[in-house]
């Protein structure tokens, strides 16, 4: 940047001179367009972009795009939105400039009508267009911006093509009623029960502690320097413990309709607790991540939004495909093998049971503990005979009835790890009726469902369905 009479005039790499105020106005306007399309953009990024524009060739579309991408995009899923907004932004520039020249050619009054206000002025014309229209490239963009749109962008990337299962899928939107006061109270009570007692995991971090089992040489040297290396005081350390992460995968298909609401409430209560990190997903025919939606402080609004975002609400069920999607795209990002996975489903599945078995086995390998809540399991005489349930059963650590508050309290106990010595691994109780039929099931032995039915659970006595280890 050479010294010019006007400090706002900067030299571009091509040698031409550009008004820095114009660049800033351009950058701020573009930033706003991006923000209204749902990216989280702060002013600092816009300022960076303005600086970046002084460093690159302004006439080269791909370079300018790449520069903006480096500054504004913060996650992979943002790229698509960014590209769309950029295309529109660039085209508008081109329309005003028949010769497609560099930015220098833009008339100041056209670029930034309120240029007179100086730096930091309002966005230029195109900024308003993008905002006012509420459309980017024919794609409706939320006007409010902020969290809502980020969530949508988030979900956008992971929904299968809408027409993927068109005919078979009973796509049905469901109005979400407000929770009854009683349900709310139940859910709230659960948080109180859960929060203080979640199973802890040893982290790799260490803390000094009087009753630690490991010597802490660093601290010991330090404390004994005064004695010149005579160890008069011994110092100990132990691993720091932290609550395990929880991932909830909730079935909201037609057969689960009656139960889903209370269970979502429960998930919401879990997510609201700050003590533990929770990720939540819902599935019917496809998997949708709802973690951010459920974080809304207004709990009823959050549930309504989940209902909106999930368009296969109360449709069919594809457990295998949904688990596969989770294993492929989310397991590594959300689990890191030390988390607890809670699946809420009745196990009624329209897909291939073999796939359910393979994918449940894989899910089990990726987590610390796999808990399955089944609303039907509280019914006297219940046996996991439904296709999906039967396939998944051998890989489940804890199989619990769900649907009553009492049974969710039981879940609280499991999550706190208090009863882990009583709890039994699903597969170990199981012997094998159809093991030969399933290649993926070799890790654990399978049980004939009859053996499970023998250990019955009534709604009043909600115990895990397992025989002793």
């Amino acid at each position, binding site marked *: 940047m050479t010294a010019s009479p006007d400090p706002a005039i900067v030299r571009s790499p091509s040698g031409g001179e550009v008004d820095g105020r114009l660049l800033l106005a351009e950058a701020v306007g573009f930033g706003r367009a991006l923000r209204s399309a749902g990216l989280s953009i702060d002013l*600092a990024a816009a300022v960076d972009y303005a600086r970046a524009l002084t460093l690159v060739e302004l006439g080269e579309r791909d370079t300018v795009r790449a520069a903006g991408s480096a500054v504004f995009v913060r996650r992979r899923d943002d790229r698509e939105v960014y590209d769309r907004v950029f295309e529109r932004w660039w085209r508008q520039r081109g329309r005003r400039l028949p010769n497609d020249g560099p930015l220098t050619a833009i008339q100041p009054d056209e670029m930034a009508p309120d240029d007179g206000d100086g730096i930091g002025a309002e966005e230029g014309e195109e900024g308003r267009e993008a905002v006012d229209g509420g459309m980017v490239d024919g794609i409706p963009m939320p006007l409010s911006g902020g969290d809502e749109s980020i969530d949508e962008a988030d979900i956008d990337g992971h929904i299968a093509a809408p027409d993927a299962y068109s005919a078979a899928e009973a796509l049905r939107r469901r109005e979400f009623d407000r929770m009854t006061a009683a349900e709310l109270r139940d859910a709230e009570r659960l948080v109180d029960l859960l929060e203080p007692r979640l199973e802890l995991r040893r*982290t790799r971090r260490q803390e000094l502690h009087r009753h630690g089992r490991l010597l802490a040489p660093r601290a010991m040297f330090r404390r004994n320097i005064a004695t010149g290396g005579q160890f008069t005081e011994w110092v100990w350390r132990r691993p720091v413990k932290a609550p395990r992460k929880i991932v909830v995968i909730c079935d909201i298909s037609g057969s689960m309709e009656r139960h889903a609401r209370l269970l979502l409430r429960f998930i919401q209560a879990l997510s609201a607790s700050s003590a533990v990190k929770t990720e939540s997903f819902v599935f019917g025919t496809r998997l949708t991540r709802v973690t951010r939606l459920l974080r809304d402080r207004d709990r009823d609004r959050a549930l309504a939004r989940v209902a909106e975002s999930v368009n296969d609400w109360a449709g069919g069920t594809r457990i295998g495909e949904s688990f596969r999607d989770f294993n492929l795209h989310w397991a590594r990002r959300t689990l890191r093998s030390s988390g607890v996975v809670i699946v809420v489903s009745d196990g009624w599945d329209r897909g291939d049971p073999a796939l359910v078995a393979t994918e449940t086995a894989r899910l089990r390998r990726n987590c610390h503990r796999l808990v399955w809540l089944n609303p039907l399991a509280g019914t006297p005489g219940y046996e996991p005979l439904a296709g999906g349930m039967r396939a998944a059963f051998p890989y489940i650590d804890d199989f619990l009835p769900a649907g009553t508050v009492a049974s969710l309290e039981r879940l609280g106990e499991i999550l706190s790890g208090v009863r882990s010595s009583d709890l039994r691994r699903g597969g170990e109780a199981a012997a094998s009726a159809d093991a030969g039929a399933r290649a993926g099931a070799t890790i654990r032995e399978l049980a004939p469902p009859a053996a499970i039915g023998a250990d019955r659970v009534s709604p009043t006595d909600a115990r895990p369905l397992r025989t002793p280890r």
Partner: protein
Amino acid sequence: MPDPTPAQPVAADALDSIESIQTSFRERDYVCDRSLATATFLALQLGRPLLLEGEAGVGKTELAKVLAASLGTRLIRLQCYEGLDVNAAVYEWNYPRQMLEIRLLEARGEATSANAHDIFGPEFLIRRPLLQALESDEAGQPPVLLIDEIDRADEEFEAYLLEILSDFQVTVPEIGTIKADRPPRVILTSNRTREVHDALKRRCLYHWIDYPSAQKELEIVSARVPEAPERLAREVVDFVHRLREADLTKVPGIAETLDWAAALLSLGARELAPELVDETLGVVLKYEEDIRRVRGETSRRYLAEAAAGS
């Protein structure tokens, strides 16, 4: 990976355009597309850390190495892991040496007159990567700091990193604040096993590295495994691209392509054959179920399609 070629490092200010970065990287056998070069260029010019994300094996770590070689400076690497703390990442006192020093002072009868400065001086400080990164080399060049796999570190460390990356200074209570004369060039990489915190992202420029196009990957293979016959290289790249389209647990990265090309070469292969593919599939695919899926039928079909198509 072959050794870096003995290409002469260019002066820091010679990497002053997007093209010169591309050229300089290319000389060191690193093929990078224009958007990545632009992000790197801006990171250098704006003095910002560059956060690189992408699937495993797309060359995130390699970029830092090539950048250091291009600039002719040191590469300082900090590998992140859960539980990484200040003592392992920034500095640590050399306690045994301090002990010895005290004994020595005692033996000379100077122990009483010595002050804390004598045993808490810079010579007793063990410099860990982040502190090393604040020091320029003899030529006055700041190093390239690679903070690898930041997603593996825990959030406590990430918070600490925020401070260092914004001010490029470290405070050691016994000595004072150590500040970089010239801030290091920082590259962070993440495999996205978890989302990096927004506050950290805000301080960085960001680039997602995609898998390269077939043509670009062929260029990479011929740069990195120059001994591979052209036909073999083309067939390997083509096969790997078909694998990336397939529904696999873990699709192969560029690193796997290169490994595979090198492996086939060492077996004396001139072209891909069905048996050869099945025997060496373990170099490219790292999950048993993926290998089972591709071996036999599928791999033969890929080869046939490749032969017919291109």
